[in-house]
């Protein structure tokens, strides 16, 4: 019996060890096959999950161009930060498409992406979107904008800004809209405190937040316009509001240093009018000026899918990601952890 017990105890120790190490080691997926077929080139795309369908549509169109002929894709999609860490740790990639600039910067630091990746006309950005407020069908709470979110009875769901980098767009939008409307930093902080008092859940990622919202937790979801449009395209039934003052979301893409030259061709295609149209169809705002915006299914008004907010600010207006991360999200001195401490303890 003591042998059985020892064996079970060893299994217990093993289970803990595996559980903990699994948490630490980033998910590395996507078996990389060497390109060897005659006339075909294999390109490895590593990206965040949201633009998968848009990328796939763009790849189809790219294959019809002379540069894109014979390109075969090996793709890996997941959470932006996890994917970036996976590439930094050796996952094969030619073309990366992330949610945040910092996830590309990590690869620059690792020596995998050239420091000049932001020198292009769009500064390395391939898609835009804006932070929006999602409400249940019919908008029972009568939410019109940011001010309504801090009223009693509003239950906000927004992804966790600590564990999901992309969730930071939402918090920054809530903060900066106060300043864009002429408020002071103190007023913006006070607004964000009231905002967090109404937060009922901080799910791990944008998609988890959408799922929790659809299951009925909360009555307001802070999300991204493209995410809202894509969900409505796939049949989800909810309304969304583009606030008068909101933050422009900018998603970067880059080609790795030792990538196949075809990867650069793909990046150029994505930035061309033909490429941008594919992303627009899935709900992203175009980065290339002059991209014709046709009808976008799933948008509030499919004929005029992208209303221009009266106040549209960018991360650049807030001083860039490095400054923003230090000011807002630093573990000890950041505005957001401090607000969470104040509101978390009062609950």
């Amino acid at each position: 019996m003591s042998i059985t017990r020892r064996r079970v105890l060893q299994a217990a120790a093993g289970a803990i060890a595996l559980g903990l190490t699994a948490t630490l080691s980033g998910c590395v997926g996507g078996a990389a096959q060497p390109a060897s077929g005659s006339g075909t080139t294999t390109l490895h795309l590593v990206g965040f999950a949201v633009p998968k369908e848009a990328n796939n549509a763009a790849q189809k169109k790219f294959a019809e161009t002379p540069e894109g002929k014979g390109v075969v894709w090996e793709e890996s999609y997941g959470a932006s930060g996890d994917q970036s860490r996976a590439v930094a740790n050796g996952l094969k990639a030619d073309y990366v498409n992330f949610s945040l600039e910092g996830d590309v910067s990590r690869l620059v630091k690792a020596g995998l992406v050239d420091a000049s990746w932001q020198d292009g006309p769009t500064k390395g950005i391939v898609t835009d979107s804006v932070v929006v407020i999602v409400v249940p069908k019919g908008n029972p709470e009568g939410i019109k904008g940011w001010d309504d979110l801090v009223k009693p009875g509003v239950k906000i769901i927004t992804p966790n800004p600590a564990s999901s980098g992309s969730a930071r767009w939402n918090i920054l939008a809530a903060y900066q809209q106060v300043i864009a409307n002429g408020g002071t930093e103190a007023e913006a902080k006070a607004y964000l405190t009231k905002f967090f008092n109404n937060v009922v859940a901080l799910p791990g990622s944008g998609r988890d937040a959408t799922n929790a919202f659809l299951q009925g937790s909360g009555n307001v979801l802070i999300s991204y316009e493209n995410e809202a449009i894509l969900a409505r395209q796939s049949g989800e039934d909810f309304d969304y509001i583009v606030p008068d003052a909101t933050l422009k979301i900018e998603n970067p893409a880059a080609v790795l240093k030792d990538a196949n030259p075809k990867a650069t061709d793909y990046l150029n295609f994505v930035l061309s009018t033909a490429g941008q149209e594919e992303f627009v169809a899935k709900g992203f705002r175009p980065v290339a000026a002059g991209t014709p915006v046709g009808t976008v299914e799933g948008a509030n008004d499919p004929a005029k899918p992208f209303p221009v907010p009266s106040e549209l600010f960018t991360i650049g207006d807030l001083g860039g990601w490095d400054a923003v991360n230090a000011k807002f999200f630093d573990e000890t001195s950041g505005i957001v952890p401090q607000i969470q401490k104040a509101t978390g303890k009062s609950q």
Partner: protein
Amino acid sequence: MTASAVAPLVERPDATPSPNPRGRWRRRRTTSLTPVAGLGLGITMLWFSLLVLIPLIAIVVQASSGGWQAYWDALTSPQTAAALRLTVSQALLVTLVNIVMGTAIAWVLVRDRFWGKQFLEVVIDIPFALPTIVAGLVLLSLYGPSSPLGVDWANTRVAVFLAFLFVTLPFVVRTVQPVLLELEPEVEEAAASLGASRYITFRSILLPALAPAITSGAALSFARGISEYGSLVLLSGNLPYSTEVASVRILSYVEGDKLTEAAAVASILLVVALVVIVVLDIISRRVARHV
């Protein structure tokens, strides 16, 4: 059990026959290995090292690369401390419930015959087999805002407790069941015929025999609890200071490129788990000796 406990204490001359030949046989086996047994031990150690020891050492090395500062920062971060407190206290609570309920379920499954028993046998393992994110979805629809039970425990500490309870249910049941199967009901009948009350029979006959299995299951259940993440993703809301668990803190540190702090929190969980396993082992020995 008694023989093996006494054997190392009392050195018997070889001429005196040991009261329990099995005890002596076991002692011989552990000191001199046959070539085959040696190979087996070698493979075991290699396998164990590759899968468990080396990754564990890697965590400790990663955590110590930041010096004591990283541990100190992790421990003094009130948010991390709150997450650790919640995780450990809920896991302990769940383990206590599992010790009672798991043993009871194992008892019913082994000793009682009833309609649907086979079905229950299979269903018990579902929390093992189900991907935890699916478990989270199931729990959310059961205890969330659209609950058929009329409760809304989503995004509260109750949700953390229920999620832990769900994923750790099979451990005690599955460790106690085989031991209970081996126990002859005749022994209990004999105890009863000698005048022992049901309580005395349970205390002196059943509990000492079951204790090692119960504590093994409890250790597994605790370990599984403190490392749980998937089922909480949709259910707990990850609210700092309220429903955020340690694994979410680790994930947050990883997302912030703070691997040292992440490893520090992980190694703290590791120490907690080891302490709990050792304490459970000591309790189990005490109870088992209480014949």
